[in-house]
């Protein structure tokens, strides 16, 4: 039962699992919800979708699958005739209604029921079955004058179909970080715990030593709990050829932001020169000289540069090579200076590794970084983090 529905959701790339599907079936068996499609929609959503960012995807998939079906296959339920009638009234012009009188409501409804029974699967086109397109009187987008447009805006009744047709959750999609958990796990390799903060943990070894020194009289020693103490400086290339990689960079950034207590980030364009900036919209107004950054953040910071390193070799090698302004010193000089300040640094490159050899600038930067360039994939991230931890 409903296996097709489940597979349909899977095909639509919703992260549903068998376990959740079985939960849904169990809930149906125990009659948690009524027999209406609204209840089924809410129940399916609460069982199968675990993130509001997927609500929109679910609404679309659900609408597609159940378009034209007002009952759940396999469950005996009444077709809500009143509801359909209301829909029809809303979508038919007076002339059409007059025509319809010829056929009569009851007959139309009967037809409709019969077809629902005959119909085994979703159908598109054709002239008889319920589905999308085609000239059947039933379904969506048909052009039969007596057609029922199922799943249009309903007449002000607060039914679920309104929710999935309206796709109310559209703007929740993509606003929240997606798939960053794996990145976070990779970044955790960087964690280095140190004892800092309030003393709230019993130091067992210290207590034993202290008690022994105290001739057996108890001397409790406390110590601070361990905290993640790693400090990270993140430099992000922005604009130009990086536009293709925005999504993966955003994911990395949002994962890094919640994972490290001491994280500072700066933006640059193509190659790092005298200036970096914190807010890309005000990049020309509020720049920080790289000298200041180097003086402010000590060598205990680990540096992660994210960029595709794809540019003209002049931008790296020549003074005045920057595409934005005339820089007095070449990019290579600045990169070397950075590496001198922060010896532990890696370059993460969103371009696929196999292309690296074909681009001169990548080769150059890779040499400057002493081969510590890694692809911006999970595996690459892990290699990079391991390198930083050495």
């Amino acid at each position, binding site marked *: 039962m409903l296996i097709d529905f489940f597979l349909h959701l899977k095909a639509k790339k919703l*992260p549903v*699992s068998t*376990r*959740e599907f079985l*939960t849904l079936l*169990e*809930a149906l068996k*125990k009659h*948690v*919800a009524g027999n209406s499609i*609204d*209840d089924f929609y*809410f*129940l399916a*959503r*609460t*069982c199968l*979708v*675990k*993130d*509001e960012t997927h*609500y929109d995807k679910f609404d679309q998939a659900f609408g597609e699958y159940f378009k034209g079906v007002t009952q759940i296959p396999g469950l005996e339920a009444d077709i809500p005739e009143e509801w359909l009638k209301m829909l029809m009234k809303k979508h038919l012009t007076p002339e059409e209604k007059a025509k319809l009188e010829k056929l009569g409501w009851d007959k139309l409804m009967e037809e409709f029921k019969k077809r629902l029974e005959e119909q085994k699967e979703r159908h598109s086109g054709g002239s008889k079955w319920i589905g999308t397109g085609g000239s059947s009187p039933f379904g969506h987008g048909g052009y039969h004058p007596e057609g029922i447009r199922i799943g249009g805006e309903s007449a002000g009744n*607060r039914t*679920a179909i309104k929710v999935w047709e309206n796709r*109310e*959750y559209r703007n929740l999609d993509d606003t*929240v*970080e997606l798939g*960053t*958990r794996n990145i*976070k796990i990779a970044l*955790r390799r960087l964690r280095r715990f140190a004892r800092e903060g309030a003393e709230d943990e*019993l130091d067992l070894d210290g*207590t034993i030593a202290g008690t022994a020194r105290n001739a057996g*009289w*108890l001397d*409790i020693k406390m110590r601070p*709990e361990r905290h993640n103490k790693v400090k990270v400086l993140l430099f992000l290339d922005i604009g130009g050829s990086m536009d293709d990689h925005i999504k993966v960079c955003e994911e990395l950034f949002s994962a890094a932001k*919640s*994972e490290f207590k001491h994280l500072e980030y700066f933006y640059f364009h193509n190659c790092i020169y005298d200036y970096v900036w914190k807010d890309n919209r005000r990049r020309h107004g509020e720049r920080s000289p790289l000298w200041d950054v180097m003086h402010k953040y000590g060598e205990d910071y680990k540096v992660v540069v994210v960029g595709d390193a794809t540019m003209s070799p002049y931008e790296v090698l020549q003074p005045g090579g920057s595409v934005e302004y005339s820089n007095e010193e070449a990019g290579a000089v600045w990169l070397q200076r950075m590496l001198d300040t922060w010896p532990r640094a890696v370059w993460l490159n969103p371009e696929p590794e196999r292309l690296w050899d074909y681009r001169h600038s990548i080769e150059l930067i890779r040499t400057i970084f002493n081969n510590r360039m890694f692809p911006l994939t999970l595996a690459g991230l892990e290699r990079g983090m391991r390198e930083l931890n050495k």
Partner: protein
Amino acid sequence: MRFEGTDSYVATPDLMLAVNAAITLQRPLLIKGEPGTGKTMLAEEVAGALGIPLLQWHIKSTTKAQQGLYEYDAVSRLRDSQLGDEKVKDISNYIVKGVLWQAFEQGKPSVILIDEVDKADIEFPNDLLRELDRMEFYVYETRQTVRAAVRPIVIITSNNEKELPDAFLRRCFFHYIKFPDKETMGRIVDVHFPKLKQNLLREAMEVFFELREIPGMKKKPSTSELLDWLKLLVAEDIPPEVLRSKDRKTVVPPLAGALLKNEQDVHLFERLVFMARNNR
């Protein structure tokens, strides 16, 4: 047991369905939603409506999963041993029961609220997988297994600050409380202020939803802020006409401080009002 909403809490049909699914199938229910949409309230209301005890576990960034089960107070045992206290011989005197243990030994249904699960460390939900799934855990110190005779109803809230692991999500029901529409909001206000003047309410709601529409707002006013604001309007006895002023866009509504909690938002709003005035 079925939850049908209460006199003081308006539950939409989809929320009720999610709660009832969690009650019937005895799985945890994960609730997300904008701040101030009544996520924490839900657990209290479910417990109240079903007439069963509520056990709350508020999560902080330092909370460990173990603390919900039990803690072994080694320090006081060590101290007692120095003083020669008889208690010291039985280790179970130093086992402090956590919220889950307390719920498991109730012997009757109860509601556990795990509030703001996203505040904790990223591994926190994973550490509770088995405990929430099987509703049992093992106490190493006393070598006993604690098992729930009656599975409690578990309600977990999250503010979306961290992503939760998939394995955890798969075991839960999920519901996202979406911001109430005008009609639902009307019912919510009715529940809290039954005798509010109809026209005042209508004007106030217009102002409120208009405020929420302003793009670029850092913290949109939520239900709880609307209720606070209404309380103030009633206390100050502000007539509805003040809110209705024709050019609502050019006047800052009275007591707007109750709705806008963020300095930048207040500035943004004042700037918009100022611009609207100049355009006249």
